[in-house]
């Protein structure tokens, strides 16, 4: 995890390192070394996950070949051939090697039993919708959440703060998919709802999505799922920003700035917020794991054709190869996001580099 517990001197108090060529070189190398260390850490995590992924599915599923060839019944000879192809007739170690080879050299994640196509080609068609949904909602919830956090912290325990805290905690206690269902019921359904928004999907039939009117159509379908995810994760960002602001507000330099006669607004905008933003922004990347999980169920509720809906397909079809590939993808992206967060924190916050 990142070094979030930073007990550091304030910027003003930080002493310049002593002179000398060695010190300068060491200072110059600090950031690359930091990045290098974190990179190695991330790679190790990834490798461990790959191993875990391999053993999990091999150990817990009774006959991998049967799962692969389900319903395409093969005689004994054909099954033997397939076993050899995927290395299942050899030792566990050789299987692992074959698995890694196929994965890393040929990006072959196996064949999906539901779609009878290579797992990678099935997954790659569904990545962009999820990126769109997750990207837009992360952007919105981080922006809005940060603003709420700032305002709430600055007027601590005021009415805005109390209300926003209450709303945040309530949203936090809600399953995201249920929030989506509620929105569907009242905004998209036409029995008890307004029937305004679409019930699901990414675009209407016969709409050319590469045209501007197609973009509008997609955006229209994006509204409800995006709203769901944004609301669901608003609380995370606002709470983090709020506590970060409170931490900064208690620092000496703020008192100094105020004593200097700077107006409240200037103090807040130019001093507190930039410093408070730092850990908050890195938290955006760290919460990626949660957002992925949320997107899983929200996509299912709105039939949004992304990775989440694909996961639900894999679950109900007991499609192990697909499930395994998806799991790998989710985990790898969280590792990458954590790495980015670490690196960003290291690059942007000089205090961390000292560690």
């Amino acid at each position, binding site marked *: 995890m990142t070094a979030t517990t930073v007990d550091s001197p304030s910027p003003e108090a930080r002493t310049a390192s002593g002179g000398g060529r060695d010190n300068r070189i060491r200072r110059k190398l600090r950031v690359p070394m930091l990045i290098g260390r974190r990179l190695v850490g991330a790679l190790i995590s990834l490798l461990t996950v790959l191993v875990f992924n391999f053993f999990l599915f091999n150990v817990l599923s009774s006959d991998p070949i049967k799962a*692969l060839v389900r319903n395409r019944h093969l005689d004994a000879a054909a099954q033997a051939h397939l076993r050899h192809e995927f290395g299942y007739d050899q030792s566990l170690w050789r299987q692992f090697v074959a698995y890694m080879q196929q994965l890393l050299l040929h990006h*072959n994640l196996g064949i999906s039993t*539901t779609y009878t*196509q290579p797992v990678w080609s099935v997954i790659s*068609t569904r990545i962009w919708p999820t990126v769109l949904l997750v990207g837009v909602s992360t952007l919105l919830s981080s922006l809005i959440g940060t603003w709420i956090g700032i305002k709430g912290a600055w007027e601590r325990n005021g009415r805005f703060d109390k209300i926003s805290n209450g709303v945040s905690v309530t949203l936090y206690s809600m399953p995201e998919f249920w929030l989506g269902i509620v929105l569907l019921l009242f905004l998209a359904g036409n029995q008890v709802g307004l029937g305004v928004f679409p019930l699901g999907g990414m675009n209407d039939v016969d709409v050319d*999505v590469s045209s501007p009117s197609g*973009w509008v159509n997609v955006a229209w379908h994006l509204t409800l799922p995006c709203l769901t995810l944004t609301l669901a994760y608003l609380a995370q960002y606002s709470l983090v920003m709020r506590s970060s602001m409170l931490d900064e507000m208690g620092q000496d330099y703020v008192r100094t700035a105020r004593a200097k006669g700077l107006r409240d607004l200037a103090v807040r905008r130019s001093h507190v917020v930039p410093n408070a933003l730092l850990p908050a922004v890195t938290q955006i990347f760290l919460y990626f794991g949660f957002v992925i999980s949320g997107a899983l169920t929200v996509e299912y509720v709105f039939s949004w054709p992304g990775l989440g809906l694909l996961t639900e397909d894999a679950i109900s079809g007991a499609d192990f190869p697909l499930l395994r590939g998806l799991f790998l993808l989710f985990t790898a992206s969280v590792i990458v996001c954590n790495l980015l967060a670490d690196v960003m924190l290291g690059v942007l916050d000089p205090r961390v580099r000292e560690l």
Partner: protein
Amino acid sequence: MNTSLRGRRNARRAAFAGVAAVAVFALAASPAMADPSASPSGGASGSASPGASGPSVPPGSKTFTIGIPGDIDSLNPYSGFLSVSYELYGDVYDLLEGWSQKDYSPVPGLASSWTHSADGLTWTFKIRSGVTWSDGQPLTADDVAYTFNRAINDEAANAQYYNYVKNVKSVDAPDATTAVFHLSAEDPIMTQLWVPVLPKHIWEAVSAKDSGTFPNDAMVGSGPFQLVKRDPGQSIVLKSNKKYWGGAPKIDYLVYRVYKDEDAMLQALRKGEIDAVDEISASGYISLKGAPNVTRIDATGTSFDELGFNTGAATVDNKPVGNGSPAARDPNFRRAVAYAIDLKSLGDKVLQGYGQTGGSIIPPAYTNWAYSPGDGAYTYDAAKAGQMLDAAGYTKGPDGNRIDPQTHKELNLRFGAPNDDPRYKSDVAYISGWLQEVGIKTTTQLVAEDKLTDLIGNGEVDMFVWGWGVEPDPSFQLSTMTCDQRDTGTPSAPTAGWSDSFYCNAGYDALFKQQGQTLDPTARATIVKQMQQQLYTDAPYIVLYYANNLEAYRSDKWTGIQLQPEKGGNAFFQMGTYTYRSVDVKTKAVLASDSGGGLGLGAWIGIVAAVVIVFGAGGFFLVRRRATADERE
């Protein structure tokens, strides 16, 4: 609701892919196939490279779009087993004969006429001349001979179409417009050959071991429609064959649009995004009531849902497979179960009245063939069921659950069903409830369809709920209960056949052979009814109900819908393509706009950028406003 796994008009199928299947995995596992652009999907937009793809339907065309609850499983007529796939084959390929729109009686198809010898062993079909394949090659009797000979000799093809060539020895084509069939025995199926006629010049290049796995992306056929594009999981676009021998369809394009969620599909119909829906649930049908511009169709069903039993899973060599419960093998037990289930209530609750109570495996819609048990029908009588169970030795244990007299252990039957259609789930819920009331304990297993096929084929379930669609000629459906249709292979590595109940009765088999060689309809009907009676008594299936076929379409925009049969029939997914060829727009008003392909990379970048800009601007505005408000403090 997903009514998938209904092939050949809802035939269920365990593929006989055999050695051919090895090829698909060998092929796909190799690095070449890992390259997404080589994927067999046939649709550029469905592949990994998100290149910009243009519209597949030109603006201003007449396009009829029908929503389907699940995607087809294969473009290859030798390997598909879902009913939507067979719907597609019927659009793109021709059959020798057709079924009359009025009453399913045989009408000319690709064969303009036919005769047979007095002994019924030689059939001569006159093939139309002037017909061309979609790639421009002329269609001749050679293609017909090739198609049927392959269906006889090729393992994968024979697995699919066995029922139609079971008595055919060979087919030859003495000239370009004549095909001669040589039979080993008379067979009434000769006027209802559901075998798509395939182009020899394409398929002779496909070796036997690739039969089942050949992607068939081009789908070269002679039918009223031609494949333009397939987007796996999303849509199938067909264009009309304006040179079709049966007359050009009035529309220009026919599009099948996949919806995983029935609610979304019905909403699309209400909004006019699609033009028709087929086989919707009772719940969906009810919710469409009063929807403006939507006409609903409540058609007599030709399918049934059944409670099937593992009456003794075994290979065709009579070697037992799996570990089925002895109770399910006992006809007394099964008959007792028949009395324990309230079929009328089930139909009411699950179908909300849109269906008929169950009976035999030939639906009452086929009045010529259907058997009705009459006074001997099973009724709902839990007390009688209890007595029958006691009499058969299944006494109640201390906690009220019945004990199997052969194993002396408490009964706990494994009860499987497909997990994609809520209707099966409801069936299982009610049935297991009723069984619990008479002391029979069950464990439910709602699984994916292919997994269920596996479990059944391996003899690892004791009972299951599933459904069949039945074609007008009863032969195929009756064949699923013959000894020959049980597993092939070895008990440890069985390959499933069409039989999922593993019913095997020599007398029944003899009757099956006999009806397969009886040409006189009345005499044949007698035999067919006799067979059904035997099945009803032995109860390898307890037929639960015949669901009506519920459809709906936009009547404000479309006219020319044709029902088959004429009275009380359905409009879409027919034995033929009557509606698709005759449907036309009512006015010259709004027609199809661009039909989207996949999303281009540029499109995606554009979308994300646009959204970022919009919200960035909004955010900026917000910040500025805040600043002003703060200044005022």
